[in-house]
């Protein structure tokens, strides 16, 4: 058995990952992954409201992946990926995608900003952002982060990894949605 397979299986077990997709994200793939997650949530018998939250956050995160794509002239050194993790009390949605170095600081600032706010402040920021409705150059990711933070009611975890590219890094974003609403 090839070693990558062993390692993938071992990481999946360690991290409780149930689904990993790595490759091109097109409409059909996004649709079928949403359908898989929907089926999974349905069979888990979790609350409708939580299901809706997970679904909305997943849509937002998958949309973000498609927005941060390589430009045509860039050699593809890494692939975007999506990982669904099921823990006893919560789900994690993890995305990874290349991100242009010019947008890293902006993304970092946005996430740090939303992570520093409480629910009321997030609501106010969301309203303000919608009123301004200024879509950023990378496709309105700022509003997306606020929305995700509001829906998950948990802090967003992120990291940037160096890859073999002068212009891109690998951006990973992890959200956590609790199975039970308190």
């Amino acid at each position: 058995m090839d070693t990558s397979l062993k390692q993938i299986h071992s990481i999946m077990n360690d991290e409780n990952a149930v689904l990993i997709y790595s490759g091109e994200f097109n409409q059909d793939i996004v649709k079928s992954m949403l359908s898989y997650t929907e089926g999974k949530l349905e069979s888990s018998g979790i609350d409708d409201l939580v299901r809706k939250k997970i679904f909305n956050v997943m849509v937002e995160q998958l949309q973000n992946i498609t927005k941060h794509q390589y430009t045509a002239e860039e050699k593809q050194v890494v692939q975007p990926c999506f990982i669904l993790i099921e823990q006893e009390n919560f789900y994690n949605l993890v995305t990874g995608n290349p991100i242009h170095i010019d947008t890293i600081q902006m993304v970092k600032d946005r996430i740090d900003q939303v992570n520093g706010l409480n629910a009321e402040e997030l609501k106010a920021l969301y309203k303000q952002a919608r009123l301004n409705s200024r879509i950023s150059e990378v496709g309105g990711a700022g509003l997306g982060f606020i929305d995700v933070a509001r829906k998950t009611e948990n802090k967003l975890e992120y990291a940037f990894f160096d890859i073999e590219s002068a212009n891109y890094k690998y951006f990973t974003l992890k959200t956590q949605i609790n199975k039970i609403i308190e």
Partner: protein
Amino acid sequence: MEYTYTLQKLMAESNYLLAIRDNFESLLSKSVFSIVESQISNDNLDVNIKNRIFSVVVECVQNICSNDKAHSTSKNSILLLNKVDVGHNIVVGTKLNNERKNRLEQILTEISSSSTEDLKNKRKSIISTRTNLEESQKENLALIDMFIRSAGKVKYHFQGEDGNDCFLIIEIEISNN
């Protein structure tokens, strides 16, 4: 968070497109088929090859992965799909108790030493003599089907034999030719 980047690298290195770890109950199986279908429908492959890939995935999910009725809530099975130079590899792994291990080992040893013609005859004989197949016959048929559809390009091994449980990994190569 580093595991995300590591997983992506591992998946990319061997061209893995998809990895699912689950109990593959019927509701989820449908969605798994839908992901695989959308994966291969984008490839410029002959429709017969696509059908072969899809059929093997169906056999894997329905008869190998979802057979652990005693632990239906645990995620004891995995399914991976990867693109290789000659075609596609479908990898299925599942946890087995000793009884199932012995049964599958015997079936796999027998099948892997049989010719395609013998396997086709065996398949016919199982289907024609029974209307309601037992679990072991379903497994037998699924494995025969994998060998026939892949022209014998099936590798398997049992790993981590630990007390009463072990893990069976089967790799099925569906060539583009």
